[in-house]
């Protein structure tokens, strides 16, 4: 083994193909995106160098950018709270030995994750319908319960973004439950037995043992859910087209519109660079503050 590490040709043979693929498929496009963000480029012609013009417009004059950034905060916040909060509770309940048929419930909770986004969006569009000629399930339930809360859920920016974040979380919670449930199952039972001997209740045991020991799983989930939320596109594309107006726009949707509808690929690249930086910043913050020490059982 030591000989292999000393053999530079062997190292080169093993590293080079992977490094080349990574460079061509990941690194090079990122650099190209950065370079093209400094150009007025329509995707066909060569483009004209404009320096930081796109970034200046983006940060100072583009009202859609401001809306997208705000939506980029609301959307992941709701998905994180729903998926991790509710996901933890459900996973804890399912992991309890007192619960019968937990396997069936695990499958049921996982069903939305197996559906395609298009189906989920169409399903929820039908359930959220609010026109008098076609009242959807949600508004119908409010009507039946006599609660005056029926409304057009997708007509205003805030309610639309909340609804879409909710259904993203609804669709993704199966995966979250699965990850948390698996992590709970990997915690040695001895910790709980010791806690019980010291007189701890199940609730206290979960608060002081389970939750802290899930920190690495939470870190992974936070990175996945937040970066997924920042990159949200498909729900907006299918359900609202970024509207009404641009009220449900996100950076990814802006990027799509700029490139494929306006033919302004240079500006789209500037948005892409901003999105990458935003995702990197969130990842760095999570890495800095969550589960800094590795847990070994």
């Amino acid at each position, binding site marked *: 083994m030591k000989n292999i590490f000393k053999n530079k040709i062997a190292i*080169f043979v093993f*590293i080079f193909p992977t*490094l080349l693929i990574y*460079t061509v498929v990941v690194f090079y496009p990122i650099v190209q995106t950065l370079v093209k963000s400094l150009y007025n480029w329509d995707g066909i012609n060569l483009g004209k160098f404009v320096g930081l013009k796109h970034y200046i417009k983006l940060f100072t004059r583009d009202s859609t950018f401001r809306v997208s950034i705000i939506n980029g905060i609301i959307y992941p916040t709701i998905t994180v709270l729903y998926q991790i909060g509710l996901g933890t509770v459900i996973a804890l309940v399912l992991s309890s030995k007192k619960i019968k048929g937990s396997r069936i419930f695990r499958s049921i909770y996982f069903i939305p994750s197996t559906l395609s986004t298009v189906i989920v969006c169409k399903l929820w569009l039908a359930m959220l319908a609010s026109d008098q000629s076609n009242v959807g399930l949600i508004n119908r339930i409010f009507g039946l319960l006599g609660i005056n809360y029926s409304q057009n859920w997708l007509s205003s920016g805030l309610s639309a973004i909340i609804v879409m974040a909710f259904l993203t979380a609804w669709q993704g919670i199966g995966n979250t439950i699965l990850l948390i449930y698996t992590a709970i199952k990997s915690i040695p039972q001895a910790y709980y037995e010791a806690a019980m001997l010291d007189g701890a209740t199940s609730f206290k045991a979960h608060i002081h043992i389970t939750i802290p020991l899930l920190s690495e799983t939470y870190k992974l989930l936070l990175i996945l859910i937040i970066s997924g939320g920042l990159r949200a596109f498909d729900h907006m594309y299918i359900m609202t*087209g970024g509207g009404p107006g641009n009220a449900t726009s996100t950076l990814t949707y802006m990027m799509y519109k700029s490139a494929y509808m306006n*033919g*302004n690929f240079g500006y789209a690249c500037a948005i892409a660079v901003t999105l990458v930086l935003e995702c990197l910043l969130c990842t760095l913050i999570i890495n800095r503050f969550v589960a800094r020490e590795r847990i070994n059982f």
Partner: protein
Amino acid sequence: MKRGFLKTVLMVTLSTVFLASCSGGASKSDDSKANGESKQSESSKEADNGENVTLKLYANYSDDQEKDTLDRAIEEMKKEMPNVTVEIEPASQDDGQKLKTYAASGNLPDIFKSDGVDIEILNKSGTLLQLDEYAKEAGIIDDIADAYKDALYMSDGHIYAVPWQSPWVNSFYANKKVFEENGVKIPQNYDEFLTAVKTFNEKGVLPYALFGKEKQWCLHLYDIMVTRKAPDGIKGLDENTAKAGDVDYLEAANKLIELVNAGMLSKDVFNTTYDQAKALFTSDKCAMFMTGTWALNGLEQEMGDNLVLMYYPLADAGSEEEAKWNMSGGYSQGGFSVPEYSKNKEIAAKYAVLLSRKVNDAFVALEGGTSIYKDSPKSEKKLGPVMSQYIEDTKNFKSMSKFDWNLSNQELKTVMEDKAQELLTGTITAEDFAKEIDAAIEETN
């Protein structure tokens, strides 16, 4: 030592990729130029020898009507250019993305349909072959109806595509049965329209089906309202000859807000697709509908006598006749184009020019549309009274604005679409709407 070696490997990899990309970019244009020259001579040789040539044709070829029309046109072309065979690639409904990708990679088919903004972008890149001489030789310039001559030439005064069909316009339709059952008069002007909206609302009938999920139709509605007083409509904004803050434009926005607040549109308007809106209208669940006149024939077949074509009953009372023929919609440059670097560009250009005329003739004969040429073939199709009336009416059209997809300022178009949809929520004022659009006009010009 180990670290130094890894650094070297990394540097070699990165340098290779960057050098490869730089050299690739530089040689592409040279190659295409060189190829263009050599291919031109090959093409000329083939033409001279009368050899069999196969051309790739990228055209609308998806639904039955498109297939029948193109098949008939190609059949006719066999009489004109028997040595040419075409391989059809059906055009994708993807906002021109496939075409742009072909253009970016230098792989445009020999003949392709180009329209809207795509043709402007492609022309900027020098990709399109100038068709002036070919069109002249084929008699297109002499034979095209005067009203449509402008559609031939692009802003630089040259022909890069030959259109194959007459311009369509946006149109309002009324469901006679719904109006009669609810005792509402089919409106002729804005006041009557507003009254109809209010009455239908009170009776629990949806007054107007708009497929607002497609933002361009929100903008078309605004355009229709504007063209009652300012005939250029959104074309004026696109060409920077008008401002959204102008009196007529502001009045149009205010009237739309009034109609929305009166309950003109469904609560789910922004999630409504074309199929849903059409189904509401044709199944007597809604009183009025808007789409382009390309759908007129189909609607008439489906609804028969219940279909009424209305010429935008949104003008002020007393000025209905004055505004009646200010049409919303219209033509843009577009048709069949040929890339400069086509291997068979001479033959492709001749074929494209002639084919566009054959498609026009086939469409008129099979579908009964209006011809863009002075001598139009007779329609083989028995047309309904509404369609026949429309064809007669086209002679009265006084002015045309533009369809959303034909606007040349893409960034402004997107802002206008967003804001028009927002306007129809009734949550912004006409002044704010105008301010945002005028800011975009300034920003993008």
